């Protein structure tokens, strides 16, 4: 049973375009949603995160939009750069419960120059 789903599985955009990565979840107790970025041969690294009390979180070119009612969120990467090419994982947890993060299956983003 997949508690956190991501789409698309892979995405290709041109340099300068906006990439939109989607995520949905099932467990209504989830209230913390980090996005991790992973480059080949490395471990994931935190990119940006949001708590369920907010509907938007912005950090430079990266923005999370969160819809609690629909249990959906998305990561928007504006002015995409070739260096953004990586796999992006949406994750979720119940911050008052177990400390384990539930990860989605990831979106592999390729930014063409």
């Amino acid at each position, binding site marked *: 049973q997949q508690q956190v789903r991501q789409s698309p599985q892979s995405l290709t955009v041109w340099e300068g375009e906006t990439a939109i990565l989607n995520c949905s979840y099932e467990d209504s107790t989830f209230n913390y949603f980090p996005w991790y970025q992973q480059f080949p041969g490395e*471990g994931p690294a935190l990119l940006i995160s949001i708590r369920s009390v907010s509907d938007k979180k912005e950090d430079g070119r990266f923005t999370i939009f969160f819809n609690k009612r629909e249990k959906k969120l998305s990561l928007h990467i504006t002015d995409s750069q070739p260096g953004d090419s990586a796999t992006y994982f949406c994750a979720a*947890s119940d911050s008052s419960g177990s*400390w384990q993060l539930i990860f989605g299956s990831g979106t592999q983003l390729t930014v063409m120059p």
Partner: protein
Amino acid sequence: NAGVIQTPRHKVTGKGQEATLWCEPISGHSAVFWYRQTIVQGLEFLTYFRNQAPIDDSGMPKERFSAQMPNQSHSTLKIQSTQPQDSAVYLCASSAGTGGAAETLYFGSGTRLTVL
């Protein structure tokens, strides 16, 4: 700060052999996590420790897998009688351990285990 250090980077074992994977968390971090990453299953939680005590091992296969944290500077994941389906990248992560489930996890580069 060298980050989370995992050794070895690559390990090849024969079916039925034992594999021990090592993790050195970031100094001062009191929470240590183990995840397994495969193409098919993605990132799967295995277990975590807080202040060296095992807290949640709900993701650990009940047989053959065990994890320990004998001191605050390292943790080990041991797989007995390795099977081809154990082939994966095993990731260790640490966090400060003070902010609960909403803390940032700092991952190592992982150990790629290949079971022939």
